């Protein structure tokens, strides 16, 4: 990570953890100008119950991470189910960084800032997505 990139230490740690947790995916980051980052993790495995085998996942790490929830997450806008059913509750049309996307609304109601990292949150979201 370039030293001139202006991230808070917590956001910087989260970005490094994401790169370690998804070694086969590109983790693209963009500064938000406040110490946080807009993050896109490319080529995350998906598969059943969805027709698509991979997706990108986008989200924002705010400057007050890890106190602030990482929410919502966004995936590819053409997400469709193998069984042809609607995507269901918690999934809706949205936009991420001006790009059409499917919004995944999974808020953490009892956030433990000392234990719930951006990686854990993303893994929970993906787990929920694949279990629909």
């Amino acid at each position, binding site marked *: 990570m370039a030293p001139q990139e202006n991230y808070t230490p917590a956001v910087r740690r989260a970005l490094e953890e994401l790169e370690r947790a998804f070694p086969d995916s590109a983790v693209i980051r963009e500064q938000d100008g*406040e*110490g946080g980052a807009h993050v896109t993790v490319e080529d995350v495995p998906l598969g059943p119950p969805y027709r698509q085998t991979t997706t990108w996942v986008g989200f*924002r790490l705010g*400057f007050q991470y890890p*106190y*602030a*929830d990482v929410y919502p997450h966004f995936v590819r806008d053409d997400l469709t189910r193998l069984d042809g059913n609607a995507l269901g509750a918690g999934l809706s049309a949205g936009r991420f960084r001006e790009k059409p996307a499917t919004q995944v609304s999974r808020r*953490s109601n009892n956030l433990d800032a*000392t234990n719930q990292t951006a990686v854990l949150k993303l893994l929970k979201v993906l787990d929920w997505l694949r279990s629909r």
Partner: protein
Amino acid sequence: MTSQWTLTIPDGLYDRLQAHLFPGDGDEHGAVILAGVTQGPRGTRLLARELHLAADGVDYVPGQRGYRMLKAEFIRDRVLKARNERLVYLAIHNHGGGSQAAFSADDLRSHERGYPALLDITRGMPVGALVFAENAIAGDIWLSRGRRVGLASATIVGRRFQRLWPTLPRSRTIHDPTYDRQARLLGPDGNALLRHLRVGIIGAGGVGSLLVEFLARLGVGTLVVADPDRVDVTNLPRLVGATRWDALATLSDERRPQWMQRLGRRLASTKISLAHRIARRASPSIAFEGIVGDIADADVAQRYLDCDYLFLAADTMQARLVCNAIAHQYLIPGVQIGCKARVNEASGDLEQVFSVVRPLGPGGGCLWCGQLISPARLQQEAETEQERRQQRYVNEAGVVAPSVITLNAVAAAHAANEFLFTVTGLTKPDAERAFARFLPLDRRMVWDESPNDPACPECGPGLNSRYAKGDEVLLPTRSRRAATRWPGLRWLYPRIVSAEQDD
């Protein structure tokens, strides 16, 4: 910047230390404090974070050259901890006497023998010694590169505000007939104490403007006030001293063209300029530092780190997170004030109205482990308006912020009394420490639990907590500088200090 060094001690830590040093046997006892450090315009403050009591005969034993000494193993473990956690090591013992404290010649010789080596171990973090009398303290602080400073004073903070010096200074009683009626409650030194305090108010809205009025009239010497907003017509029912001219009501009237309304909103008085006017009207000699900015911005938060007390009168979660962090990280006692109403979503009926006064920091509670800072709201407040429109948020439960001056006044007055009686030493030792909630519809008042979770990253003693760490840890603030919409019009507010001007 003055080079004065002082020590801030939470009252709970001080009481444990006092009980250990002065158990009534008239003998000498030992301990160690590990402290954080912060540097500010008024000098360098040591922040007492951990107390390690030396057990008599085990850790604190007869000395080879002096009367008593800390054993090498006891010192080693604490010095290594200080090095690893970037804290200041302070060895402590007591002498007899009441209001004067000083090191003996033997004490000073032991410092000269041992502290250069300790400085090598701590890799440049200061080391030193404190000697306590029952109501006095002296300190000998060793810095890198052969520098050495004395401790000017110590302040015990929490549910009381008590100063200790090496010798009792001359009385600073101020005989000002203006404050005669107040002096009959606060005592002869009370007004003088208020005059020397630097008090921070976060938010100059409905609650904040009342606090500015109260504190200025009480005779507080310096107010530091930040608010990013301008006066709006809808603020007039609850902003102290606000006029329709402040809101440029003629321009911003909804019957005017949109461009004129926008112009009116942009040229309306800032809430800071209004607060400045209120403060100077109440107390012409007050020092007022106003910041048109948001405490969530790093350069605005920086202005509060040297305060003696904080009032959180802003209603954003971002402000709660930063203020709570400052209170615990810099050992600054304070209070959070708020008013809420609960409306039944289905029927629209008003279910409950309450005002709260929540003491924070040393001697108080914590908004984070008290679950009073919503991670979801923090995330939403960081979003741009466009991002909020693009995302579909589920409607929150029907909790809205009322805008009623009388509700604000209940909370503001109780908070101001909390401050006044704490700093003047009038709060009783067994006074309630919980959060206060006033329920005007029920005509009653309740106490809410005021938690301090040992595992809390804000107020707990854990390795990674920010508690009493001072400048060693970053605050959870926005890293960019606070923006000014109209830098060219700064001349309109010549006596207001803005974050942008204060380079």
